[in-house]
């Protein structure tokens, strides 16, 4: 692999709090990968927002237990449950994030925890480049050894 095509932008190892924002995301990559593992002080749900926007998200998922769900024009993307007993693992791709044409900024990927796993597809229709990503919970706090990392993927030229 050519050097420097998959680069860590920022890493966060939260031990408290219910929200974290990756801000001032550089615009010199083609795509982003948000991955890591999260553990909470109790059972709850994890959500994701782009650019601090609190509306107009569409999302749908398939659960590995065979279920499915979807929601349109809501305030955040539901990326799955969180637990206090194990590290939930997630890997999300955010493609074409720096585009300024009006299009759907897509989030696709997987999140697996105790008794569930989502294959997730979601989007936010906007003409703004994505400059921040926030992950927050429905109430429980992040605990150790949670870790969140945002990677940038650069086209090799």
């Amino acid at each position, binding site marked *: 692999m050519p050097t*420097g095509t998959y680069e*860590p932008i920022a890493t966060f190892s939260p031990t408290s709090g219910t929200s974290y924002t990756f801000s001032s995301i550089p615009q010199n990559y083609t795509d982003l990968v948000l991955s890591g593992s999260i553990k909470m002080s109790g059972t709850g749900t994890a959500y994701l927002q782009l650019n601090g926007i609190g509306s107009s998200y569409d999302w749908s998922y398939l659960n590995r*237990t065979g279920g499915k769900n979807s929601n349109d024009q809501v305030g955040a993307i539901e990326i799955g449950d969180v637990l206090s007993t194990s*590290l939930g693992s997630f890997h999300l791709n955010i493609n074409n994030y720096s585009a300024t044409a009006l299009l759907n900024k897509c989030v696709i990927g997987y*999140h697996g925890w105790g008794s569930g*796993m989502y294959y997730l597809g979601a989007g936010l229709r906007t003409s703004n480049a994505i400059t921040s990503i926030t992950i927050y919970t429905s109430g429980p706090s992040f605990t150790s050894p949670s870790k969140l*990392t945002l*990677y940038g993927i650069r086209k090799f030229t």
Partner: protein
Amino acid sequence: MANTFDLISSYTVSGSSTNQVIFNPIPQNYSDLSIYISSRTNVGSSYSLNNLIQINNQSTASSYSGGFAYFRPEDSNSTLPSQTSSPISIWASGTNDNDANVFSFNWIYIPNYTSGDVVNIIYAGGNQPSGIQVFGNSRPSTGEAITSLTFKQIAGLNFIAGSTFYLYGIKNT
């Protein structure tokens, strides 16, 4: 900036078939592990789900829990078939009934593998044509840093020549 996505080790089955591929020891200086598998087994059906992942040589089925859902061309139900019985760390393989050049594709992701906590392994992949797509998660019952991974065939089956296993380490600094 230095590479953050490093190939730790790889293995290609050649000549005699084998029932397991082991990566041991796994360096502890990465943040996450990503594994890419393309495999075939010597079973006579369109796909095989007899593929396991074992952590740190822990071979007791009850030591793992998780589950997966799957899609097949013949499935038309609105609810995906799924399986949560042990053993559970599974991906799909191509088989003898596939064309000789048809191998499965599979991706496995293990973040925070050195944490010593109970980490969920997530995976997705499948096998075509006449095949199956799977996605799911699995986790050990107790937390420990992952120092070895075993990719194993059960039910007397083997990985056959051409199957490939690539283990990558991902750094977050």
